[in-house]
């Protein structure tokens, strides 16, 4: 994931360019909660990130998670979301295993 600022603000900029920080809340449920070791996390990015990239970050830390990628659905702010969804600061992302209510 690129950490460099996404744009340069100017030649003689009085203040060094600061990339916008994106902070999101991440939730894990069911088996994914056990594999990731937590139910809830908060994470910051220096640059635009998709849900797919967010999952990859956790999968790198917890390789067991990667095995379940094909049976995970993601949500953003309580709505099912596509993996290419770009995150915005303040978003709540959840990784959901197949649901088994009822």
């Amino acid at each position, binding site marked *: 994931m690129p950490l460099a600022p996404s744009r340069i603000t100017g030649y003689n900029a009085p203040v060094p360019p600061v990339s916008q920080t994106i902070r999101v809340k991440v939730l894990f449920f069911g088996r994914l909660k056990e594999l990731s070791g937590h139910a809830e996390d908060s994470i910051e990015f220096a640059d635009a990130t998709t849900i797919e990239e967010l999952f990859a970050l956790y999968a790198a830390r917890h390789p067991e998670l990667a095995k379940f990628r094909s049976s995970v659905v*993601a949500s953003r702010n309580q709505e099912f979301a596509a993996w290419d*969804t770009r995150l915005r600061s303040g978003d709540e992302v959840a990784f*959901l295993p197949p649901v088994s*209510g009822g």
Partner: protein
Amino acid sequence: MATLPHNDIYQLVREPIDMAALARHVRAPEDGAIVPFDGFVRNQSHNRPTLYLDYEAYESMALAKMREIGAQLHEKYRIHRVAIVHRLGRLEIGETSVFIAVSAPHRAAAFDACRFAIDTLKRTVPVWKKEYFEDGAVWADGELPPAPAVTPRAKTAS
């Protein structure tokens, strides 16, 4: 009890579900039928005796999805009121985990709506159950909810 425009009830609870009270709630003089669905804990899973189940939910989203189901019912069927209640936490064999009641002037709509509600709930509401056996526990096989494959262009641009 929290009610919505149609006087519906959508709840997640940790105590036993009072089915009679919910059936009374959806029943009105202009109705002719109520179809209830009582889903309860089975004593075995794939021929292994079950000890008990433990349910968890993504509560805010589960409630939102339950309300969405209710809205769909009112759109699709000529029904009067809906109650959908799911219980969470540890449930023993025979205890009700989900209860749905739909009232309508005529029975066909109530049957169809109730069936649609439980089928949709099982596919789209983020609730999970862990099954406990003598020799361990497993997360129950579930259904993968339908999610958008890619973000629609209009949304990415916004």
